[in-house]
């Protein structure tokens, strides 16, 4: 009995209640308590005292904490039977409903998307056709503009040349006068002996109509012999006011006769319409 008393007095039971010992020591105390009712009783008294001590200092936690704590237990483990029945009643509904809604909405979406795409395609093709036509028109216009431009360029260079005739002091302007048969006829010829150039001024020309299959032919009289300077028409398609004729270096007179189309080797003197002697 003395041993047991000493064991109790040692304070080891208090340490046991305070949890201040190793697992091994705890097992020893538990074994001793099983064996000796007086140790068990002492242990029980210490536990009760500490429980009273804790209870005496108890503080009521806030009212909401009860639900929070109990809910955390129910969520962690809870009542398995309840949880399962809730899950079973929910799962099939959600499993069924969600896919149906999904396919319905997606198929409607794709229908609209397809229709919209088709419409867009038609519009695109129409727009492309219109644009293609416009492009063709533009290209045609561009071609005609280029042709015009070339024509104008030619005209401008010719006009420049024409102006040069007046600028060039070596040109002489010779007024060819009408013959007794054609008194009202007149023609101006520009001639530069230096440059061997002869031009006729068609804009101011007053010549009788040559007749079917006939043309005017310009002649120079050099050293008593007629020299062919080429044929011309009054209404020329190229619409140039000054027409360059064949070149001649010296001349004593200029004359125009009416000859068959293409001209003659010798002038038909009775068909002479204008003449000028230098």
């Amino acid at each position, binding site marked *: 009995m003395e041993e047991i008393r000493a064991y109790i007095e040692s304070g080891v039971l208090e340490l046991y209640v*305070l949890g201040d010992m190793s697992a091994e020591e705890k097992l020893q105390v538990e074994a001793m308590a099983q064996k000796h009712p007086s140790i068990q009783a002492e242990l029980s008294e210490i536990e009760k005292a500490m429980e009273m001590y804790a209870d005496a200092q108890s503080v009521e936690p806030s009212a909401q904490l*009860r639900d929070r704590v109990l809910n955390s237990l129910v969520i962690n483990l809870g009542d398995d039977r309840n949880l399962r029945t809730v899950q079973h009643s929910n799962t099939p509904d959600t499993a069924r409903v969600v896919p149906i809604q999904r396919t319905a909405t997606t198929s409607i979406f794709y229908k609209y998307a397809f229709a919209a795409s088709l419409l867009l395609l038609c519009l695109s093709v129409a727009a492309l056709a219109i644009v293609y036509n416009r492009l063709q028109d533009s290209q045609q216009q561009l071609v005609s503009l280029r042709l015009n431009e070339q024509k104008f360029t030619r005209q401008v260079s010719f006009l420049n040349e024409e102006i040069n005739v007046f600028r060039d002091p070596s040109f002489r302007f010779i007024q060819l006068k009408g013959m007794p048969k054609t008194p009202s006829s007149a023609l101006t010829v520009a001639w530069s002996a230096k440059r061997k150039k002869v031009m006729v001024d068609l804009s101011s020309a007053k010549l009788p109509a040559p007749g079917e299959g006939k043309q005017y032919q310009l002649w120079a009289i050099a050293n008593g012999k007629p020299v062919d300077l080429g044929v011309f028409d009054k209404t020329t398609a190229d619409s140039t006011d000054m027409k360059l004729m064949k070149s001649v270096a010296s001349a004593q007179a200029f004359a125009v006769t009416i000859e068959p189309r293409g001209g003659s080797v010798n002038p038909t003197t009775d068909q002479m319409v204008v003449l000028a002697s230098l």
Partner: protein
Amino acid sequence: MAKKHKLSLSEEELVLALQRHDKIGAEALYDMYSASLYGVIFRIVNDTATAEDVLQEVFVKIWHSSASYNTNKGRLFTWIVNIARNLAIDKVRSKDFKNQYKNQELENNVGYIDKHNSTEYKPELLGVRELVDKLRPEQKSILDLVYFKGYTHTEAADELGMPLGTIKTRLRMAIQQLRKHFN
């Protein structure tokens, strides 16, 4: 008030309900012991939010490990209050907590709690301050170190510069004093 519907079971019924994970076990456990455990936890952590977190952790731990309890190991409360003390002391010793709070002296805690908490009327509570005051300072400091600060008796001996035997004796004397008071 919830207090009117407080559940109370005998210790045997409660242990059985806990081990079966019956809802009533959780409710009875809370209603019977939450205030005691919260008081202990609060005195250790000295912060309402932390004390509430710890109390929740304590209940979760009890709920999960109730199978490991058996009556050979003593009273149920001894087992659960030691779980609460260990979790609370671990919390206080964690780095996060140390950075956040500066621990106050326990004397201040007792006064603070008595002043600021509207607790239900308990005749025995009136005596707590007297009781704590009645404990001889050396007994009280040892009990505080072990019970609220989680010192082992070896660590307390180092801290107070006393032989182990003296620590054990004084601890026993302090608890004897409590026993006398409550009887």
